[in-house]
């Protein structure tokens, strides 16, 4: 394992120190592993809290700031944070109008956030509502599994709902918006290589040089199938086809993200975006906005994912609204 670390067991603690030093507009609660805004939003506005295992940076800490999240809870690498962390984050950012928890659909994340909401209700301190993101079309038979995983759409949802929270919408309206975004977006990912969890010291799975894994999650989970390496054009089809097969986009404006898994250079991500955009055009799908880069990663995994959101004028305008986080920044 070749990594820029001091000690495999201190990766998260050391990284949080760097995040705090790099971003004066963020604060870090090191004991509870919470990243939150240095300047809280106005009293009477709904706050957004997300969180999950680490190793997906910039998600979620990189999306804390104006126009997106108010706080992010960081768990160990690929391990959900605990309810006490989430509850502490919730109390830290509450501005009297309730807190929305944004949770990716993984068994551990869902249970821990559920317990955090119960603890908050027991203390009767903060009104908490939860939206669970589950956009991964790679998971078939979702009735017989833990359900579709939450992947790339989480980034878009945090941006869109964050913008709406900034406008002063109430908790009910934000829950409805978040559910709408979750219903209208789909993602599919692929890996060229596995990833190496620092504490494990070796790649999570073996992927031969001439093979790739289609339909992966973001923790080195297995994909839908393992197939021989193909051209970017063919890979783009393997990712876009299942998305188009799962949701009809009609003539709606879409927001499209071509996301890197952490170990793929930007030049390849742009190359892939070109292929994806070409396929969408051939299918008559209108791309209104696009985002290309590493936004929800899987440590050092090489590969990418595609997310397509069926938007409308409201969502496009929320997308364009100002945002000022370390991961996304425009319009302000």
């Amino acid at each position, binding site marked *: 394992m070749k990594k820029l670390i001091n000690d495999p067991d201190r990766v998260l603690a050391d990284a949080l120190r760097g995040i705090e030093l790099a971003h004066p507009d963020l604060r870090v609660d090191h004991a509870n592993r919470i990243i939150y805004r240095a300047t809280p939003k106005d009293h009477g506005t709904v706050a957004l809290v997300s969180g999950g295992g680490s190793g997906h940076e910039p998600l979620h800490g990189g999306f804390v700031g104006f126009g997106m999240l108010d706080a992010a809870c960081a768990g160990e690498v690929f391990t959900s944070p605990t309810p006490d962390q989430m509850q502490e984050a919730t109390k830290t950012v509450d501005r009297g109008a309730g807190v929305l928890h944004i949770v990716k659909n993984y068994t*551990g994340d869902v249970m821990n956030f559920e317990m955090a909401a119960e603890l908050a209700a027991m203390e009767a301190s903060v009104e908490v509502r939860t939206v669970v993101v589950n956009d991964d079309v790679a998971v078939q038979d979702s009735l017989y599994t833990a359900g579709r995983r939450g992947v790339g759409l989480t980034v878009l949802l945090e941006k869109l709902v964050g913008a709406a929270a900034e406008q002063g919408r109430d908790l009910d309206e934000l829950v409805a918006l978040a559910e709408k975004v979750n219903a209208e977006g789909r993602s599919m990912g692929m890996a060229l290589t596995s990833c190496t969890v620092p504490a494990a010291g070796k790649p999570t799975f073996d992927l031969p040089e001439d093979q790739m894994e289609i339909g992966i999650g973001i923790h080195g989970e297995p994909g839908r199938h393992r197939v021989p390496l193909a051209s970017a054009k063919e890979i783009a089809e393997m990712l876009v086809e299942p998305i188009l097969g799962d949701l009809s986009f009609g003539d709606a404006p879409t927001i499209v993200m071509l996301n890197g898994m952490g170990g793929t250079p930007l030049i390849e991500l742009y190359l892939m975006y070109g292929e994806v955009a070409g396929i969408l055009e051939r299918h008559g799908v209108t791309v209104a906005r696009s985002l290309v880069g590493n936004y929800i990663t899987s440590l050092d995994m090489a590969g990418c994912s595609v997310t397509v959101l069926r938007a409308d004028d409201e969502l496009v305008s929320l997308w364009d609204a100002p945002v000022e986080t370390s991961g996304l920044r425009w319009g302000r």
Partner: protein
Amino acid sequence: MSTTDTLTMPAFTAWLAAFRDRVTEQRSYLTELDSAIGDADHGANMARGMAAVMEKVEAAAPPTADELFKTVGMTLVTSVGGASGPLYGTFFLRFGMAAGAVTECDAAALSTALRAGLDGVVARGKAEAGDKTMFDALAPALEAMDAAVASGASLAEATAAARDAAAAGRDATEPLVARKGRASYLGERSAGHLDPGATSAALLMEALAEVAAS
């Protein structure tokens, strides 16, 4: 065989210590099972969680069952993370609430508390029989225990029946296709492996039977 027919506060603590010893001894084995169908952290998580539990319990020495098991549950919830933290945490929290502010439990009260714990696990994890989870070890264990209690068995006999049923339930998870948790993403590939959660749950019942028999 047991000479008394109740579990007292020291016995509850001994149960927890025996569970800690088992998950610590079998840490690598549990992690190995979890590597095959999960995310390779069950042994480490349970060993870390139960070590934290015993530290808290030994320092605080809660006087009654409800306080003891609340401490156990909250410690697991806040130190383990993942899915096993909330599941085992909920199990002990509900167990303590059902046991109440008492200092001892007879077999029937123990069975009621265990049932409340299992109900909590079901409420939290939404697992059903055959989903390849800890439910598949705990549910038959409690059925066996209830049957033993109903037929007038001693505490030691009832917990021994629970231990054996939990082990059988654990073994029966091997051919199952997982329908809950991260293993479910493997589909058919999850068959042919013991479920790590059912395996640690069987250790919990083993620890209980050991303490009840001593």
